[in-house]
C-alpha cells in the first residue's frame, strides 16, 4: 500500500524533484556562466501557499457559486483554520452539517455568508439554520493542463 508515497499531500513536504532552482544565467553552449556558481535556494511553492502547515488542510471544490472570486468547479482550495475571519474572506462554512464555500460580507451591521455568483442571487438562510466557519480559504489551485 503506497499510502504516503504516491498520494502524499505536500503540505509539510515537497518532493525535491518538484523544486524549481532559480538559475543565475540563461543556458548557453560553451563556457558556463560564472553566475551559475550563485544558484539560489530552490523555490518551494508549498512555502508560498502554506504559512501554517499545522492548521492547513486541502479541500476539493464542487460547484460554481464562487466563480466571481475566481474559484472554479474542481479546484483545490487551501484552508487555514488558524486565521480569524474578516469581511471579504472566502470560508469553508458548515451550514446545517454540510460543508460549503461562502463569502463573508457585512450587511446591516451583521456578518453574513453569501455566494460569489450573480446568477445565484443572495444566500437566504432559515432562522433555524446553523452556520459555523471551519476555516479560511487562503489560496485556490486551478489546473490548466491535465498531465498524464
Amino acid at each position, binding site marked *: 500500500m503506497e499510502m*504516503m508515497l504516491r498520494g502524499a499531500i505536500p503540505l509539510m513536504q515537497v518532493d525535491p524533484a518538484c523544486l524549481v532552482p532559480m538559475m543565475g544565467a540563461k543556458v548557453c553552449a560553451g563556457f558556463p556562466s560564472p553566475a551559475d556558481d550563485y544558484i539560489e535556494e530552490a523555490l518551494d511553492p508549498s512555502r508560498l501557499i502554506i504559512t501554517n502547515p499545522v*492548521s492547513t488542510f486541502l479541500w476539493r471544490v*464542487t460547484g460554481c457559486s464562487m466563480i466571481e472570486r475566481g474559484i472554479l468547479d474542481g479546484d483545490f482550495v487551501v484552508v487555514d483554520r488558524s486565521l480569524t475571519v474578516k469581511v471579504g474572506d472566502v470560508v469553508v462554512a458548515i451550514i446545517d452539517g454540510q460543508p460549503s464555500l461562502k463569502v463573508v460580507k457585512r450587511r446591516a451591521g451583521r456578518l453574513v455568508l453569501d455566494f460569489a455568483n450573480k446568477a445565484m442571487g443572495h444566500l437566504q438562510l432559515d432562522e433555524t439554520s446553523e452556520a459555523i466557519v471551519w476555516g479560511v480559504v487562503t489560496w485556490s489551485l486551478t489546473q490548466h493542463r491535465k498531465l498524464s
Partner: protein
Amino acid sequence: MKRVYALSDGNSFYCSCERVFDPSLIDKPVVVLSNNDGCVVARTPEAKAMGIPMGVPWFEIRDSYLKAGGKVRSSNYALYGDMSRRVNAVYERFADEVEVYSIDESFLDLSRAPDPEAHARVMRDTVLRWTGIPTCVGLGPTRVLAKAANHLAKKRAEMGGVCDLTDPERRAALLATLAIEDVWGIGRALSARLAAHGVRNAAQLAAMPPKSARQILSVTGERIVLELSGVHCSALEITPPAKKGIAVTRSFGRPVTTLAEMEEAVRTHAVRAGEKLRRNGRAAPHIQVFYFTSRHRNAPQRSVSGIEHFPVATSDSMALAAAACRVARRLWADGFIYAKSGVMLEGLIDPADAVPDLWHTPDPRRAELMRAMDAVNMRYGRNMLAPAGVTYQRPWSLKQDLRSPRWTTRLDEVPTVMAR
C-alpha cells in the same frame, strides 16, 4: 524551579478526527472499530450514553446500534496519525518538552509558564481551533498527578477541559473525589488489595506511608504513591495500558540529515517497541513512523508521518523494524535537519486473536527467535542481541469496509466542499 507537568489528550480521539471532516457526525453517537472491523475501540460520549461498552464485538451491537441512529467507522490510522502529528506540533509551540505517550496522549513540560493553568487553556483553545480536536489537560507537579488531573478534567465538565493540581490544598480536596482504580498504574487487582486496607480514594493513597505502600504495592506502587503526594520520581516508567498502544520517541543527540541515520533510528525504536509489545503479550496490526525538524532551528521545517499495516498482527521485532525502515524511506526528503523521530503501535490485540492470513503464514521459528532474543537481553542487558539487516519487501493491504477517506494524506481523497 517548580516542575509542572501536563498530560494532554484528545477527547474520544479517533471519533473526533472523524468529526473534523464529516460534520454530519457532530452530536451523533459515533464508534470506531478495530482493524478488520472486529470490535469497538473508540466511542463518543453519545455512544457511551447508549450503553456501548469499550471493546464490545461489533457484530453483537451492530443491528440495535444502527437502528438507534448510531454512526460507525472503520479505523483510519492514516488520518489519526496525521491529526496526532498536528496536535503534537501545536503542543511543541506551548511546551519546552513534549513526550508522545500514545497516539492521543502526550506529556508536556510547562514548568516555565508563569501561569500554567492559563497557558494550558490557551493551548487547548489553539489545538481545537487549528486542528478541530477537543482535548483535556491535567496539570500537576508529577506525571502521576498530571494524569490524575487529566482524569478529573474529563469527568467534570465544569472545569472546562483543564484541571490544575499544582496547589497542594486544592489537590487534597480533588484527590479525595478520585477513586484509586482511576489512578495511573493502579489496576483492579491492586485496588481490591488497597480497599482491604481501607484505602479507597486517591487522597488516602497519597497519604500512605511509603513503607506500607511498598509492602502492599511493590516498588512501582511505592513510586506511584510518592508521585501522587507530589514527589517527582524520574525512574518511574509505566507502560500504557495494553489497549492504548505503545510509543517510542527520541530527540536525536545530534541533527540527522541522512536517510541511513534515520533508518537506524526508527529501526532502533521499532526493536524497542517490539520488546514492550512482547512484555505486554500484545501484537500490533500496524506501525506508524514519524519524524520532524526542530521548530527552534532557523532552517526549513518538515514534519511527516506514515503507516504500514501487517498482513497478520505481529510482535516480531524484525518485521516491525523492516516496516519502520520502509515507511521512513518512503517519507524521506533530503535537505532538512531532523531533530526527532518515533514509532507508534496502536490497536494492539492479543496474538491469539490475530486473524490468520492465507498468504502470509508467520514462520513459527520467528516467535522462538524473539523469545530467545528477549531472554538474552534480559540476562545480559538491553540491545545485547538485536536484529541487524532488514529486508525491503512489498507492503500489503488490509480490508476495512467502513473506513472514511484518508482526508489529509491522499490527494485523491481530500474532502469535498460544495460551491452551490
